[in-house]
């Protein structure tokens, strides 16, 4: 079970939250001009990386606000939490999936990570 630091409420158990999947997917602006491939890519295609992942969470049973989390999908360790609109601490990263190892030497920026491992 993860211990997630809500940017507004502080550390809370994972069961209070819902996961909203990959973060930083921007809805295309000029939708009339999109090809089927561009629509399919926006709607369905995901990075699904093994390693560092930027994802959205919502504090469903708390403040009900959305925020972003940087988490390692192998160790499940949360390395950063940041508010919507803020830049991720280590950038958005490459566009495609792959073996991105999270920088585990960096101190977590969203608070302590104790108990964040499943």
């Amino acid at each position, binding site marked *: *079970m*993860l211990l997630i630091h809500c940017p507004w409420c502080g550390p809370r158990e*994972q*069961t209070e939250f*819902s*996961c909203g*999947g*990959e973060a930083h997917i921007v809805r295309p602006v000029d939708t009339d001009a999109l090809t*089927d*491939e561009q*629509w*399919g*890519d926006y*709607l*369905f*295609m*995901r*990075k*699904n*990386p*093994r390693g560092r*992942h930027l*994802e959205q969470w919502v504090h469903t049973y708390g403040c009900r606000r959305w925020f972003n989390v940087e*988490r390692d*999908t*192998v*160790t*499940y360790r949360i390395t950063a939490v940041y508010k919507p609109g803020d830049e991720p601490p280590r950038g958005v990263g490459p566009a*495609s*999936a*792959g*073996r991105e190892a999270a920088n585990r030497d960096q101190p977590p920026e969203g608070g302590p990570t104790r108990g964040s491992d*499943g």
Partner: protein
Amino acid sequence: MNRYSIWSLVRNARSHHEQWQAAWRSPDPKREYDVVIVGGGGHGLATAYYLAKEHGITNVAVLEKGWIGGGNTGRNTTIVRSNYLWDEATHLYEKSMKLWEGLSQDLNFNVMFSQRGVLNLGHTLQDMRDIARRVNANRLNGVDGEVLTAAQVKAMVPIINTAPDARYPILGASLQRRAGVARHDAVAWGYARGADARGIDIVQNCEVTGIRRDGAQVVGVETNRGFVKAKKVGVVAAGHSSVLAAMVDLRLPIESHPLQALVSEPIKRVLDTVVMSNAVHGYISQSDKGDLVIGAGIDAYTGYGQRGSFSIIEGTLAAILELFPTFSRVRMNRQWGGIVDVCPDACPIIGLTPVRGLYLNCGWGTGGFKATPGSGWVFAHTIAQDRPHELNAAFSLDRFFTGRLIDEHGAAAVAH
């Protein structure tokens, strides 16, 4: 290959069972193959087996980064059924069911396929309407199915709680009598042995680290044991499909999630069928050893860690106790997780890719085990003929651009 029979058993008994031939060799990878299959799970091994058996292609290697039977093939709850809603899915899973029905004889390996029936419970009026619709759709497609009342469910499974004052009362169920369970390890071992006997190399501890291309044509795979040249490459990597697709800059509509299962201590026989409930989300059967085999749900977050959250187990066991209050004092023995590749429409992707000679079989999500024989059969056809079989033509990656999704989420009783 030494055939298994009562005679071979007697013959080997005389040598104290010390002379049995290994079920498959462990060769070093050759420098070049006609076809390389990436992933030695059930689906990959079945693909190799049917490439040899149905298409005469035997210069094939199956590259497995771990060991045979160590991935999802050995981590599922062994349920086999074909009662899906939509025509495309039903035909694919029914092809698999027909192969299951002759599989032990075909492989000369007892996969312990037991057609003990699968019940999908309905707890609301809408559940029962959906069940009636699905059973009708199944029967129109030639797949057996029945709608049972709560009393009929109780007669089949006396220990189930059909009290009308339950929090989610059981109103009835669908029953597929030809459905059931199979021994998952035996499926992997049987296909491995069958493929090996036809000359196919099964290479364990061989991880693919890159896919080499010449222009738009695949030419081979980089592995931790060197480069292996290949005319065709079939990727059957389940939870790691996105990682492999990224090697050729291909994006997939897949997210990998941990899915858990658990087994109890062995108890006397109390459950001779499979019970699944979508509404309370639990599914359960009893193995031949007597342990209760229980499937849980996926974690909402993506993960490659082969373990899930305790909260998921808690929710699943609450659902099981809702159905079977008598299990309240049964202790759980083991719990584990596998990484499942979930597609937005809960249907697989089996077909060609933009890279010539590279084929993809993935997205089986939480329910791939039942499809093992059929998946291998259609994928072998796709690779051998360089075009999909009519059974898997609808399951192309292209459907996420055309919009022709096959929405089996929830429609197929429970998404496993």
